[in-house]
């Protein structure tokens, strides 16, 4: 993985000192809360319902075991023993004290981590495919480019006061695990006809109150021009993006208002003028960063490991975990292991300090000391030998880290909701917990098959509800918590936005409603090969409407 050189280390250290000064000025009353707000937001510090929340960047989701241990330490020392992994490859601590935040940042800097630009109207933490460098379907490793973008975007003097926040995601694979079309800029590494790799550039995606999928801005961008092209997009947005209305300030609104083609043309004009200037990437720098992501010294192993095969036969529960949670690796004899932070009745994305320590331990023992965090709020061990899988599973199981539900209905994405967030209309966590219990039976999960269920506590869509196969959105009805349901969303290469099934459900009715939706699908699918999403695309929302509201939807409409 990437390691800081003296320059990276200096910049992060200086940032800690700068923020220490800003906190001191706030505590001394030299800054009002209003003046402090934009400063703290640039460093991932939010004021929430009960306390401050500190959001720490995990650039493109990669962590060393040493970093994981440090997060565990911070959870114990400065929080209540927990951390919360988010959909943007960040981790949040919900209980830090303001005077201690500079010390937390110093601890992070000690292990080459930071909270830089994890919030605020600037270029946020760059996200990428969690299987980068090990996925079997990869064109090229996106981490190199994500790191280049991370450095370029850090303290960018021109783009730190944008109209609104700005999110960039990079993928290098066929299967889009980075949800690039829901980002302000999505980058996909592709090969052109000449066999060269470059970027397909997507622009103007975003969720929130007005969900919009990104449009293609350029079919092929030679790699050495990446930064100048990004700069051209950002400059166009910084000058023309709306600043009069925060709900219309994202680049997606500008792209829609201008028209995708016209916007691309404006970017192109700007880019022509700067592409051969100082942002042109020297190959020496690309090579330097590339070296950090060179493949590890893999052993030559047979792809079929007899011990692994035997263990599966002897332990059906392990066999199920292996079937559900493993992903094909580039290298024979190795597996990519997914660890779901979605235990039955648990809080999606939460990890206790003890669990983090265990993750660090198994990463050292079995995965070359590296873990990844996914935008589905799960953890990945990227380099596990198949012959170690059973031993690994035995270590994970007692820590409630061996849930076998990856990609199933109980592998829920959920935002913090009303339990923590001052913008929320409704709680998300208890709904996720109840659903995970309701759909706890592994046989039930297998029968339903692939299904993505995402929950947001309000229209800001932190839980990506629009792009869940089933989406649940917390709404407020005369002071009561209600839940609106959508079906048919997807964040993958076939991205789509979910459609609303009808009037919202009360807290008591939401789990039965989801059950009805699932039963409707099970009763009507052609066969098992027709996934829930396929079924919705074929049949539309009407069968669900019928099943949920029948011919007399009156009771629920009253609450609308």
């Amino acid at each position, binding site marked *: 993985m990437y390691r800081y050189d003296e320059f990276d280390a200096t910049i992060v250290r200086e940032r800690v000192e700068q923020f220490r000064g800003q906190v001191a000025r706030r505590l001394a009353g030299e800054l009002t809360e209003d003046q402090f707000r934009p400063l703290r937001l640039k460093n991932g510090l939010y004021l929430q319902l009960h306390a401050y929340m500190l959001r720490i960047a995990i650039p493109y989701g990669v962590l060393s075991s040493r970093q994981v241990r440090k997060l565990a330490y911070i959870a114990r020392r400065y929080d209540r023993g927990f951390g919360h992994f988010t959909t943007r490859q960040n981790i949040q601590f919900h209980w830090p004290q303001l005077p201690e935040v500079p010390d937390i940042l110093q601890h992070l800097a000690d292990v080459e981590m930071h909270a830089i630009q994890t919030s605020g109207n600037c270029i946020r933490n760059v996200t990428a495919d969690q299987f980068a460098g090990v996925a079997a379907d990869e064109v090229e490793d996106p981490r190199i480019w994500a790191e280049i973008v991370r450095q370029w975007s850090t303290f960018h003097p021109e783009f730190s006061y944008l109209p609104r926040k700005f999110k960039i995601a990079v993928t290098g694979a066929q299967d889009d695990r980075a949800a690039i079309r829901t980002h302000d800029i999505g980058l996909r590494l592709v090969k052109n006809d000449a066999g060269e790799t470059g970027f397909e550039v997507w622009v103007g995606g975003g969720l929130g109150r007005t969900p919009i999928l990104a449009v293609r801005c350029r079919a092929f961008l030679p790699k050495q021009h990446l930064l100048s092209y990004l700069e051209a997009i950002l400059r166009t947005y910084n000058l023309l993006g709306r*600043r009069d209305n925060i709900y219309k300030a994202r680049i997606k609104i500008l792209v829609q208002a201008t028209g995708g083609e016209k916007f691309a043309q404006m970017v192109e004009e700007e880019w022509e003028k700067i592409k051969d*200037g100082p942002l042109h990437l020297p190959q020496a720098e690309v090579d330097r960063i590339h070296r950090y992501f060179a493949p590890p010294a893999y052993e030559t192993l047979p792809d079929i490991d007899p011990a692994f095969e035997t263990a599966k036969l002897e332990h059906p529960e392990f066999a199920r975990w292996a079937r559900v949670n493993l992903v094909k690796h580039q290298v024979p004899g190795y597996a990519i292991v997914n660890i779901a932070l979605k235990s039955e009745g648990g809080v999606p994305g939460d990890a206790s300090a003890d669990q983090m320590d265990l993750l660090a331990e198994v990463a050292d023992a079995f995965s070359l000391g590296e873990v990844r965090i996914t935008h589905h709020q799960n953890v990945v061990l990227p380099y596990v030998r198949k012959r170690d899988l059973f031993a690994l599973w035995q270590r994970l199981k007692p820590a409630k880290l061996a849930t076998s539900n990856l990609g199933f209905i109980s592998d829920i994405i959920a935002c913090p909701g009303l339990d923590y967030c001052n913008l929320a209309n409704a709680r998300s966590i208890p709904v996720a917990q109840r659903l995970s219990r309701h759909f706890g039976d592994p046989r039930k999960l297998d029968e339903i098959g692939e299904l993505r269920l995402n929950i947001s506590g309000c229209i800001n869509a932190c839980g990506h509800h629009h792009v869940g196969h089933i989406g649940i959105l917390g709404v407020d009805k005369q002071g009561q918590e209600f839940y609106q349901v959508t079906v048919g969303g997807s964040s993958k290469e076939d991205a789509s936005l979910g459609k609303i099934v009808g009037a919202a459900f009360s807290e008591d009715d939401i789990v039965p409603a989801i059950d009805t939706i699932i039963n409707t699908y099970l009763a009507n699918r052609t066969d098992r090969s027709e996934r829930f999403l396929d079924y919705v695309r074929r049949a539309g929302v009407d069968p669900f409407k019928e099943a949920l509201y029948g011919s007399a939807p009156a009771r629920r409409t009253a609450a609308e």
Partner: protein
Amino acid sequence: MALLQHGALQPNNWRFVGDDAAIPVDEPVTVSLKRWQAEGESLRGRNAPVGVRLKNDEAPQALGQDVHRLSLIEVEFPKFTDGRAFSQARILRDKLGYKGELRGIGTILRDQYLYMTRCGIDSVELPEDKSIDGYLAALKEFSAWYQPASDGRLTVIELRHPANANARRGGAPVVTASVAAHSA
């Protein structure tokens, strides 16, 4: 208002003249882009320097080659969160090649001052009684820079690959000093 320029607070002898007001004969003035476009010839005929105050939503490109005839261009920061002037400044410096004084006016906070200078702004307007210590300290908060901007500072990439940077900067040698020395 006074000016923070060259590391000290200086008196400001420039004045902005509204579109309908009379232009004084021998005083340095800035005018709106609109007035410059309408009355540029006569404004240049005076005995005193002239500048333009750009509004936030005006494209600097509208000035074109006129930038070389101006002694001052002002860009506005109406509030902390409005960062358009950062891009306007970079366009003036990098694209239009403006070499004269580029001034930031409006809400000038110490926490943005470093970025303003990186974007090519070389003076900012501040209240006369303002302490500038914080502003000067803010310039020293960082000593290494990831991205090229309009201030000519060597970037981290250039320091990592001096040979490359030499070529790009037309042969002028790049000193591979340590970060600490670079900041001194």
